[in-house]
């Protein structure tokens, strides 16, 4: 039985580096873009639950097998997907190892991704993230400096965190177009 500390370590070291390819795999085999994030989260949850009983010998094929099964189950449940798609999914086994080998990002590459992610944020969200991460200001201090409410700072920081996470982990905002990304930030009250 693995505990949460061990599972978290495994999740960070072995699962998260696979996110970019896992998302590509799901997106390639599932046409409904709005479902992709839900499916990735389902796969992670199943992997974490299973890890409580023991870690897989090889994380990559294990994770992609979970993803394949999730896609098959969803396709069957939806009943709107053609039988051919389900049949194709059942043949996916032999393609699970066809991606390039994942590698850990160097510090420099990670920094570059962070910088690129920051560039995607609206000026106000970027400023709030920088005040927190560079200047070390907390929510109250940021709110006071910018003359806005603490709730607005929290909300905008959370938006920045989510967009940066997608970029750092290589999901590229999960296929969102620039317009959708902008809408997400505007919906969060960011102009």
């Amino acid at each position, binding site marked *: 039985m693995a505990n*949460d500390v061990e*599972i*978290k370590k495994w*999740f*960070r070291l072995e699962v*998260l580096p696979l*996110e970019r390819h896992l998302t590509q795999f799901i997106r390639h085999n599932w046409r409904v873009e*709005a*479902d992709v*994030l*839900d499916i*990735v*989260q*389902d796969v*992670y*949850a*199943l*992997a*974490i*639950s299973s890890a409580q009983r023991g870690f897989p010998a090889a994380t990559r094929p294990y994770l992609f097998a979970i993803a394949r099964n999730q896609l098959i189950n969803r396709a069957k449940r939806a009943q709107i997907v053609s039988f051919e798609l389900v049949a194709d999914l059942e043949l996916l086994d032999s393609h699970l190892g066809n991606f390039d080998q994942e590698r850990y990002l160097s*510090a*420099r590459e*990670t*920094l*570059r991704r*962070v*910088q*690129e*992610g*920051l*560039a995607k944020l609206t000026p106000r969200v970027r400023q709030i*993230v*920088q005040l927190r*991460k*560079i*200047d070390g200001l*907390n*929510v*109250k201090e940021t709110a006071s400096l910018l003359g806005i409410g603490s709730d607005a700072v*929290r909300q905008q*920081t*959370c938006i920045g*965190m*989510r967009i*940066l*996470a997608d970029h*750092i*982990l290589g999901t590229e905002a999960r296929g969102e177009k620039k317009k959708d990304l902008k809408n997400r930030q505007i919906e969060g009250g960011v102009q």
Partner: protein
Amino acid sequence: MSPAQTIEQEAAGWLLALEDGPLSTTDEAAFEAWMEASAKHKAAFWRMEYAWEEAGRIRALGPAIEDGDQEEEISRSAL
């Protein structure tokens, strides 16, 4: 917002609250209950925590980053 997006949003909110902590006893219990309620919550929180830690690498660039400097820095680091 999809169910997964809602969970992500909650995970980011908890992470921020924990950083600004300490949490009240009630909030601490609420956070623990939220984490234990679903493996999806753990996945979203651990993912967000990891990425947010990595985002801290911008500290290496020093304070007061201007957009122009940032772009220059990106192209320089790509060399």
